[in-house]
Each structure stands twice: as structure tokens, then as C-alpha cells.
């Protein structure tokens, strides 16, 4: 199950990057958050508390 979540996250992040789209996951349920933390993906993918900050981060031109 973990593998599925991680693979979806990683593939989405990579495809987004290739397509010039920002990937900004938000409001992760604790169990999902734990998977991102344990796998280390939360170190390379910015996670956001809610949709507002995620959308702000995803705006073109934002660092």
C-alpha cells in the first residue's frame, strides 16, 4: 500500500516537473503524511497544510 502511494507521488512530481507544472500536495491525512516522511519524499517535495498555501506555491514564477 505504501509503495502505491509513494509511486503515485513520485510519478506525479516527476511528470509535473517535465510538463512545467508545479506539484504541491496539501492536507495529507496522517497515514499518508507518515508515508511521505518515512520514505524521505517530504524532504524533496514540499507538503502544504491547506489548499491556499499549496495553490500559492504552485503559482508560476514562485520560488
Amino acid at each position: 500500500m505504501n509503495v502505491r502511494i509513494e509511486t503515485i507521488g513520485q510519478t506525479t512530481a516527476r511528470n509535473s516537473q517535465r510538463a512545467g507544472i508545479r506539484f504541491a500536495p496539501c492536507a495529507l491525512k496522517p497515514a499518508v503524511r507518515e508515508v511521505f516522511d518515512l520514505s524521505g519524499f517530504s524532504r524533496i517535495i514540499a507538503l502544504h497544510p491547506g489548499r491556499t498555501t499549496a495553490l500559492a506555491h504552485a503559482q508560476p514564477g514562485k520560488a
Partner: protein
Amino acid sequence: MDLFVTVFYCVLDPASGTLRYANGGHNPAYLRRANGTIEALSGTGGLVLGAMGGIKYPEHAEQLVAGDRLVLYTDGVTEAFNQTDEAYGEERLIAEIQAHGAGAAPELVERICRSVAAFADTAPQSDDITLVVLSWDRVAPAVQ
């Protein structure tokens, strides 16, 4: 395909009982101390292998003392599901280590395997199940 693996890499110095390790996205190893307390080894959260190059993995160390048990496992253990889609989970694993960790390594492996099998019952196995238990019973030589 986007594939990755998790790794728990450790080196045990048999002379000193020092365990040096690094963790790349793997579940925390459990250390059952001789006095019965159980610690999840720190250092989790390192990135899985295969996701990105150039990642550095910090080295951690633990000192083993006589009576300690080190339990390594894959997530097929904690994510063995039963028929009602409930995961075996860390708590059941820790309870087995707590209850049966005083004995030798093969016994603890057997106990955990039986517990997981009984829990999953006839539900299909969702992931590989691998267990390694190390019994450390060597008394450290006195410091010269």
C-alpha cells in the same frame, strides 16, 4: 518506470558491539534492550534509493550490550492485512518483540511469523515479508 527501493544498511563490529547504520526510506529497526524496553532506531526519513541522485545519508550508531535484540523487517510485516483490511501494524509487532524477545533470535522470528500469519489468516499477502533478528549476547570486554 519510476522504481525505488528502501534500505537499512548496518555494520556491526563484533569486537565492540557497536552497530553503525544508515536508513534510506526503510521502516525503523527495533532494538529490544536486555531490560525489556524497546527503542525504534532513530535516523528514519532518509530518502528511498532510486528517487534522486546525490543524496547523502547520515551515519548513526548504537551500542549493543549483552541481551539486546535487533529486529529488522520489511513493510510486508507491518502492512500484512487481514480480511477486514486492517494492517498488522507496529503495535502488534512491538508486542511480539516485547513478549518473546528474551529468547534467542530464531524463536522471535518464528513467533512474529506465526503472529502475522494468524492475523492475516486467509487474506492474500500484499507484500514480501522479510525478518532478520540479531541476538547480541556477548559481554563487552573490560576497557584496558
